[in-house]
Every structure is written in structure tokens, then in C-alpha cells.
């Protein structure tokens, strides 16, 4: 059993409900003990950093200092929380004079940032600490050649990622090991349009359209992503993008953990698949129709 401080992020219980649920379900099967960080607050994400850089690092420092109490590394399933908390952690470690100011402020609530833990992204933990090989041993339903486009997005890879950001492979390897067929997907490491979908929707729609078209052109039966913001854009806005571009994409978008969960034979109701807007029913049926793989 590997233990971590769990930082779900604000989306995991709202627009990213399917992420929160599937992470909990899959973690159990993979012997990960995720201890939710008590009284965590929002990481601040891009908006806080953009309005007040220094104060946003302070907000991150509170979460990091809370996690340092038990000394366990933080793991978050959200690419944005990962990028932000990692940046805060590194900046505070590297800048003692700034850290001192932050600690004076944190003392008001009895906390202190020491710089003793790491911030990690859940898919990275799954890939390195669990490994695709071990997941493969636990597979109950092979994906049976399902064509999967792995959308890494940005902040899993940049700036703090653990693999080649120009040609990431980790998710494709996991897909392969659970019986799926990774499709060629040059847009896999590009931007989904981010939170621009709210205030600069044209810009975001253009990105979403490019990603969906690229997956569709390469014959993907579904897209997977680790990130709740990418998921909202590709799944919830797929209809709006179809209207804007006169297209008729109907590609289910699953969280990495939802797809792994299906292969592990976890009951679909625990994976939050009913929260997906583009219905994944077709691929779920395809995976489950083959019956339990023998010998596992």
C-alpha cells in the first residue's frame, strides 16, 4: 500500500465529478491509499496567479504546509493543481527571502512551510509507482483493441512533467497494456482551449475543434484525458463546437481512471460514467460484452 496526501482540487466534486469518483474507485484496486488533505483550499489555478502572483504562491504554501504535517507527498489528479502547487513548492524552496515573508504570514494560522515534500500527478504515480505491467495483471476486461486517442493536454507535460513533452507515451503505454490500441494523435500534447472557453470562447472552440478533428480523423473510438478542464472542454463543449463548426463529432471523452476502471472490472456506477455528457455507452458495452478475461 502506497500512501499519499490527496489533493482532489475543486473540480473533482463538481464539473470533474467523473474524475473524483473514478480516482477513488481505481485507487482502491491499485493499492493506493489517498488521504484527503484536511481543510485544503483551492490551489489558485491560473486566475489567481494572473491577478496576484505573489499572493497566489502564499495560498499554495498553506496547502503545502498542511501536507508537510504528516510528511507524505501530495498527489493530485488535476493537471492544473499539479502545475500550480509544483511551481509554488519550487519557488518557495528556491527563494529563502520570499519564503520568510510567506512563513511570517502562515504563522498567523500556526503553519510553516519547510519544503520537505513533493507534489505529484496521479497519472505519473500510476505510471511509475504502480506501472502499466502491474495494471495489466489486474485486468478483468481487456479493451479488446479499442481505438483510444490519449489526450495529455498541457499541464501534465509542461512545465513540470516527467516525460518528453513533444512526444509523450505514458498514457499510450497504459492503454496498450490494458488491451487498447493507441491511435496516432499529433494533437495529443496541445492545448484544449483552457478556461478561455468562458471569456474567449472563439479561441477555445478553435482548439477544441482541432483536437476532436484530429482524434476523429485517426479513427479514435474515444478520447482519454487526465485533466478535468480538458474534459469539460472536449466533452461538455463538444455540442457547442459542433454547432459552431458545422461538425457532428460524437466522441466519448473518458478520464484515464475511468478507462482503467472499466478494464479492472469496477462497477460502472463507481466510475461516474453517468456524468459524461457524450455518452460512453457504446464503448462500455463493447468492453463489457466480451466477458471476464480468463486466468486473471
Amino acid at each position, binding site marked *: 500500500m502506497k500512501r499519499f496526501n490527496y489533493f482532489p482540487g*475543486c473540480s473533482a*466534486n*463538481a*464539473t470533474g*465529478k*467523473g474524475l473524483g469518483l473514478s480516482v477513488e474507485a481505481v485507487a482502491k484496486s491499485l493499492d493506493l491509499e489517498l488521504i484527503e488533505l484536511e*481543510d*485544503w*483550499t*483551492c490551489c*489558485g*489555478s*491560473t*486566475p*489567481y*496567479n*494572473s*491577478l*496576484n*502572483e*505573489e*499572493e497566489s504562491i502564499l*495560498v499554495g504554501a*498553506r496547502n503545502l504546509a498542511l501536507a508537510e504535517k504528516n510528511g507524505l507527498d501530495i498527489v493530485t489528479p488535476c493537471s492544473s493543481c499539479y*502545475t500550480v502547487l509544483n511551481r509554488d513548492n519550487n*519557488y518557495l524552496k528556491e*527563494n529563502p527571502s*520570499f519564503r520568510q*515573508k*510567506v512563513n*511570517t*504570514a*502562515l504563522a*498567523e*494560522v500556526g503553519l510553516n512551510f519547510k519544503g520537505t515534500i513533493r507534489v505529484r500527478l496521479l497519472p505519473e504515480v500510476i505510471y511509475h509507482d504502480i506501472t502499466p505491467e502491474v495494471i495489466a495483471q489486474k485486468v478483468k476486461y481487456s479493451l479488446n483493441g479499442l481505438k483510444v486517442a490519449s489526450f495529455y493536454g*498541457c*499541464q501534465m*507535460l*509542461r*512545465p513540470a512533467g516527467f516525460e518528453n*513533452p513533444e512526444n509523450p507515451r505514458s498514457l499510450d503505454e497504459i492503454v496498450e497494456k490494458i488491451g487498447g490500441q493507441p491511435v496516432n494523435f499529433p494533437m495529443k500534447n*496541445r*492545448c484544449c*482551449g*483552457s*478556461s*478561455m472557453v*468562458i*471569456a*474567449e*470562447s472563439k*479561441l477555445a472552440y478553435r*482548439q477544441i475543434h482541432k483536437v476532436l478533428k484530429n482524434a476523429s480523423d485517426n479513427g479514435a473510438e474515444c478520447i482519454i484525458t487526465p485533466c478535468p478542464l480538458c474534459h*469539460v472542454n472536449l466533452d*461538455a463543449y463538444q455540442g*457547442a463546437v459542433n454547432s459552431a463548426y458545422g461538425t457532428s463529432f460524437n466522441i466519448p471523452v473518458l478520464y484515464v481512471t475511468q478507462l482503467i476502471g472499466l478494464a479492472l472490472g469496477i462497477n460502472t456506477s463507481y466510475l461516474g460514467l*453517468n*456524468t*459524461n*455528457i457524450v455518452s460512453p455507452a457504446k464503448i462500455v458495452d463493447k468492453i463489457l460484452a466480451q466477458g471476464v478475461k480468463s486466468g486473471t
Partner: protein
Amino acid sequence: MSSTVSFIDEVAATPGGRNIRACIQCGVCSGTCPAGDDMEYSPRRIIAMIRAGMKEEVLSSSAMWKCMSCYLCYDRCPRGVRPTEIAHALESLATKYGYKPRGTKNDKMYRSFVNSIKNNGRVHEVGMMMKYYLTTCPFSALKMLPVAVQLFLHKRMPVKPERVKGREDLAKITRKFQQIRG
């Protein structure tokens, strides 16, 4: 000290702007930026303008507010300049001096987002978006209604915010921090 020197000094003193002097104006950032064509000034040009001391033009621009934080430029910059972080630093400076960008409402979206954190400790996505749409462009709220309805029907739009005790901590530490920074 001339104003040319002082603006780049000011940017270089921010967390995000600390590597700005390493820029060699190669333009990889602009060539790689998925939002570059939509920006008033490209990332490379913004850095040149900072060096030229064009504080007013830079801080009143909408360019950095269209950065999607994809970090492609950050990753590909051969000099480690971190243009993505420079964008965030410029947005923060523009906010500090009260500049309102022309031609984008993204600054207002960010404000709704951060206010939601301050009020609840965690972002309440529905509340944040409603507030943004109602105060800036109610018409686009109507256009977005189908997306919101789908999210709601799929249990992804809790109506009530998740208010946590930590919001009181945030108020205390930010107040103290502002005092220290003066």
C-alpha cells in the same frame, strides 16, 4: 534612472519575470503560441516592448490576457525565459496598477474566479460563471445555457458552494502578507 531601465527591472523583480533578461528575441515563443495570432502583440514583441520601456502600452494591452497557459513557449524557449510566467507577471502588474485591458473580458473572469476562492475557500464553478456572465455579458449567458443545462443534468453543477473553514485562514494570511509587503 531612465524609465526604460525601470520597467524591465520591475518585471525582472517578479516571480514570473525573473529570467526575462535572457531573451535573445529568437521568436520561438511567438511561432509556437496557439493564441499568438489572436494577441494584440506576440510574446516575442511584448518582451521587446518591455525592454524598450513601453510600460503603458504593455500593461494596457490584452495580449497576456489571452495566454492559455499551455506552456509550449516555456518548454521550447532555448533560453529559459518562461514567457508563460511573464504573461502572468504582466497580468499581475496590470492589475496592481489598475489597467483595464482593451478587447477582452478575461480579466473579469479571473476576478470572479479569485473572488469565489476568497468567499468559499474553494472555487464554486457555477457561482463563478454566473457572476461573470451576469456582470459582463448576459447575452452570452443565454448562449451558454445548453452547456450549463447538460452539466447540471449530469450532476456536474452543484448549486451550493463548498464553503470550507480554510477560507478564514486565507483571509488571515493574505491580510498579514499585504502588511509585510507594504
